């Protein structure tokens, strides 16, 4: 495990990304500051449309433009600001130092090439390997993500593989160049639960082996508890809570975090026990037009809302240690 204070590997500083909409520009990422240490695991949690995936795309330098653009702040990767880096330099970093796996393993592989070709492609791009060497390495990588008969499977087309297999291939592609950071954007949402567990085990094992830092984007608090050391909860483009995973799960401060945790079903020791009611968070994520307003954007859905929430934006405040939340009325006590 990495020591704190050793200078983060990746550091988002007040990162703001704006989208041009019909009603003017809105910040889809609003002064976001996140640190990631080498070899660490970070969970990025929130509902759809909260800016999780946008954060990932921003780090990769892939914010769709138009309508998006960097409007402020910086992304420091090994002390270099990626928001100012040239395209050519970003291409060198992508897939090499920072890589990403996507939600849909069904559509993330190109249907017209074999999986071996697709892994070899990345290797040849970044590692100056010849055709032959890249292919051999691709087969090794397939083996390392536990694909049986890798030598034969490398000749398969994506449609011949199951969803779990395809996600393994995606992981093999992402880890081909031993990146320092792997961003996994809901890597198991489209997979069966048993396959999910396998993929997470695989990611954990590969992390221990390669020392790659992982940013795991998800809306599933259970996954976060399983996989990560630190959690950032996002809402409407802002960070609303941040802290070590244990603190956040045991004692969430922000009502939104509480809602997320309460909406995950728990297994009970006794099947005959009366199941707890699943709590849902009422309402929906605000529309883009409301992003960036100087108030608490969660207020309309919050059980503890007050007038102050509607008129003033809460800033991140710590309650000691690394645990911080942006709420005027943080809750204390266990979830």
């Amino acid at each position, binding site marked *: 495990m990495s020591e704190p204070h050793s200078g983060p590997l990746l550091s988002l500083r007040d990162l703001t990304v704006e989208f041009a909409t019909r009603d003017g520009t809105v910040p889809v990422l609003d002064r976001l500051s996140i640190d990631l240490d080498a070899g660490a695991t970070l969970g990025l949690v929130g509902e759809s449309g909260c800016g999780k995936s946008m954060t990932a795309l921003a780090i990769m330098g892939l914010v769709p433009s138009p309508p998006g653009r960097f409007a402020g702040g910086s992304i420091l990767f090994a002390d270099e600001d990626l928001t100012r880096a040239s395209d050519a330099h970003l*291409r060198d970093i992508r897939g090499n130092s920072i890589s990403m796996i996507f939600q849909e393993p069904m559509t993330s592989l190109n*249907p*017209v090439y074999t999986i071996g070709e697709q892994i070899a492609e990345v290797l040849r791009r970044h590692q100056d390997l010849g055709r032959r060497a890249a292919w051999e390495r691709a087969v090794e990588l397939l083996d390392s993500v536990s694909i049986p008969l890798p030598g034969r499977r490398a000749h398969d087309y994506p449609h011949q593989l199951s969803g779990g297999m395809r996600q393994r291939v995606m992981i093999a592609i992402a880890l081909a160049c031993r990146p320092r950071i792997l961003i996994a954007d809901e890597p198991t949402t489209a997979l069966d639960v048993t396959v999910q567990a396998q993929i997470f085990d695989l990611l954990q094992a590969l992390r221990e082996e390669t020392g790659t830092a992982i940013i795991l984007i998800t809306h599933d608090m259970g996954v976060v508890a399983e996989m990560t050391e630190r959690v950032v909860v996002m809402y409407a483009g802002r960070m609303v809570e941040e802290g070590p995973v244990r603190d956040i799960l045991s004692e969430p401060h922000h009502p939104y975090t509480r809602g997320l945790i309460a909406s995950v079903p728990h297994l009970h020791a006794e099947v005959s026990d009366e199941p707890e009611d699943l709590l849902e968070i009422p309402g929906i994520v605000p529309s883009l037009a409301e992003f960036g307003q100087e108030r608490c954007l969660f207020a309309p859905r919050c059980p503890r809302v007050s007038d102050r929430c509607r008129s003033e934006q809460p800033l991140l405040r710590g309650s000691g240690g690394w645990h911080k939340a942006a709420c005027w009325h943080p809750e204390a006590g266990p979830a």
Partner: protein
Amino acid sequence: MATDSAAVLDGDRLEVAKARHPLAEAAGMFFRNHTAVAGLVTLAIIVVGSLVGPYVYTVDPYEMVWAPFSEPGADGFVFGTDYLGRDLFAGVVNGGRVTLAVGLSAALLSVFIGVSIGALSGYYRGWVEEALMRITEFFQVLPTLLFSMVLVALFGASLAMVTFAIGIVSWTAVARVTRSEFLRLREMEYVTSSRSSGARDLGLMLIVILPNALPPIVVQAALMVGSAILFEAGLSFLGLSDPNVVSWGQIIGSNRPYILDAGWTVALPGFFIFVTVLAISLVGDGLNDALNPKLRER
């Protein structure tokens, strides 16, 4: 009972087909389509005939060998003779090559222009797309035949110029098809995925997106060959073809004044053009059925 087992067999074959390369699957689909295969066979006969024919039937198509306007079958000339007493069969045998070559190269040229413009505008969007699509629209609203006539009239009726004139006016459909495919495919996750692994724009366009966009482009290109042949015939009919090179269209064009007295001199090469274009259309339709996943369900 027999139909049942056939259905099961068909089902099995489908299962097998699933494990093959998408192209192999499409080829299987194509060869089960009888009209398409008929078109392909006809086309193959015409192509082989045009390539080999001149070596088998060695009469010079430019030489006056008999009296003019000898009817087909008379005097030992299968297709008769034209207004200068040239052997029409020799003309048809030799003209096929040129006609096919012009059709093919004009189609290639228009596919090249169309794919380039469509790919760039669909991939980059924004002002690139705006500019390129305005250019495309400009070429779309030009009266194509008139524009190519002007080109040929200005720069001379050489074979290359005719080919260029046809290609330059007929790429807009390819550009639109390519653009729409690129617009659709650029949003696919595997494109984002390739981009996130460091692919450059050119690589994304040519290696990642283009192979996936090919099916409708191939269909369009196949049909384009047919329409380019018709176009060449049209230009020739108006007298705008290289008078020194015999092609089916050129035969029609040069015999046009005598169409009422010696109809066969126009009808025979016209029939070959008709059959060729029909065969190409059948092949194009077959390709469309085989490559278009929506039609594949039928």
